[in-house]
């Protein structure tokens, strides 16, 4: 079985990743880490660079899990990428991080999380960076 996690180097991404590692350990499933950028910005901090890729790899190797890092530097939309991988792997669970978005921000930029939540064919576990209470 497979767990897909959407990862960006941010607080939300870290929370999602560590939870996904926990879940994968518990269920003894394969973990696929998806990180992608459309490549239409000149500067994009959400894409992991070579160093971060290496660190991520080391960290996952340390957990002893069966894992795969899918990094797309000139990919499709992040939501499509996650859904695409999840569908191809018949994932049992998708893990994503949520962040606060104003209504206006969501209107302009869209919401990756919302699309994953609505369009996924499997359960989606969404996490916030911090517990609010």
């Amino acid at each position, binding site marked *: 079985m497979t767990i897909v996690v959407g990862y960006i180097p941010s607080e939300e991404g870290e929370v999602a990743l560590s939870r996904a590692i926990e879940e994968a350990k518990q269920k003894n499933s394969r973990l696929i880490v998806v990180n992608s950028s459309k*490549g239409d910005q000149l*500067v994009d901090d959400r894409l992991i660079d070579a160093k971060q890729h290496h660190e991520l790899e080391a960290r996952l190797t340390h957990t002893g899990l069966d894992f795969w890092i899918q990094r797309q530097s000139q990919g499709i939309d992040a939501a499509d990428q996650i859904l695409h991988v999840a569908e191809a792997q018949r994932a049992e669970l998708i893990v994503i991080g949520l962040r606060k978005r104003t209504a206006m921000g969501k209107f302009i930029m869209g919401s990756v999380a919302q699309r994953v939540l609505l369009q996924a064919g499997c359960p989606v576990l969404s996490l916030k960076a911090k517990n609010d209470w």
Partner: protein
Amino acid sequence: MDTLNLLMGGFESALTPVNLLFAFAGVVLGTAVGVLPGIGPAMAVALLLPLTFGMETSSALIMFAGIYYGGMYGGSTTSILLNTPGESATVITAIEGHKMAKAGRASQALATAAIGSFVAGTIGTALLVTVTPIVVKFAVSLGAPSYFAIMVLSLVTVTAVLGSSKIRGFAALGLGLAIGLIGMDPVSGQKRLTFGFAPLIDGIDIVVVAVAIFAIGEALWIAAHLRRTPAHTIPVGTPWMGKEDWKRSWKPWLRGTAFGFPFGALPAGGAEVPTFLSYVTEKKLSKHPEEFGHGAIEGVAGPEAANNASAAGTLTPMLALGLPTNATAAVMLAFLTMKGIQPGPFLFENEPDLVWALIASLFIGNTLLLLINLPLAPLWAKLLKIPRPYLYAGILFFATLGAFSVNMQVADLWILLLIGLLGFALRRFGLPVLPLILGVIIGPMAEEQLRKTFQLSSGSASGIWSEPLAVGIYVLIAVLLLLPVLIRFIRRSRGVNTTVADQVLGEAPEQPKHKAGVAYEGRSDEERNDS
């Protein structure tokens, strides 16, 4: 004394709240377009041309001057942080600047670039004030044949000496001259190149050509190469410099200014040669030559100063002779023509208020730029996160709107699209854009002088060389064209490599860069490719 009084008058009109506001808008916009690679000040000015129809001429010109200077400031930011030079003038800055940024000294690099630009811009503008009236005094005595010769000189030098390939340069120039010919013959009223298409009789509006070449062509080109692996943000603090940095920077600033202004002021223009010369000089004179190639602050301070001083210098032939030598000056000149102001030596006599307000606004804009660039550098870097599809959609929208608003005719939109495709093709096949736009703008002016010459000599071709100055200039053109060939010939027979003349007249801008970094042969280019 007279000049000083006129300049004070200029400050008086440039310091009105409205004009200050326009200067501020200009520098903010200029910095923004300078920071974004691919969008230069020329495109920004071209896109704003239609907006200025209802504006006071001096206010619009003040805004354009702000954009022009701002673009130079902003370009260095991208060069330093991303190693993506926004324009040819900041290519050299990227060599050392990006290395400094990678070594965690981004803020010092940005500071020396900004302060150096301010110093060079201010000195350059002061030189502009002193030199231009002298050039004007000389220029008013010029007859049509000499005038024509000077125009030919500037077209030839911009095309042949500065570009990377002569054939491509002349091809672009030919295209530009052909576009400039379209419309009614100014003397006989004959229709030229209109192909029976009525809207072409008045010629193609320069606004349409400029917007098409700079905005549509560039947008199509970017759309064809939209995606690239994004880089990571390099953390920038507020730019500041330590004592050591100041000590190492001030001499390169002054030397860079000394290189930049004269090269800008020549009718040949261009910022590439002085920035390169300044880099080489700093490398030779530096007490820390081992740091070059690893982020030497002199390598940022010198070229950045040279680039801004040459920007000031470029305004000398533009104001004194009506000859633009870079793209932004060309579009600014097109704006003057559009407003019914005759550029040329009589500009100072006929429109003194306008000219001096413009020059005063250069001083003001320069100061504003330092004020908004030093503390806000991290903010400007954020502009690079804008997804480019949004950006270019906006540019295309304003370009279309602008081109339509010139004459309110649909035919202009088709012409816009066609010339835009031509602009795309130019970029695709590596033809330089500058000779084309200069051909469109200088072409008709040169034609007018040529026709005058022939009228004076009653149609005899000897009229062209009837003035001694004209003969001298033609000799100079011949020397400029033949010298590189001759040098190559001599070098081959002697087997000697670099000469100063070759560096100055070097055909390929990339070539000297290798020579500049002999110790790190080709490394700077490799590094540029992988980031």
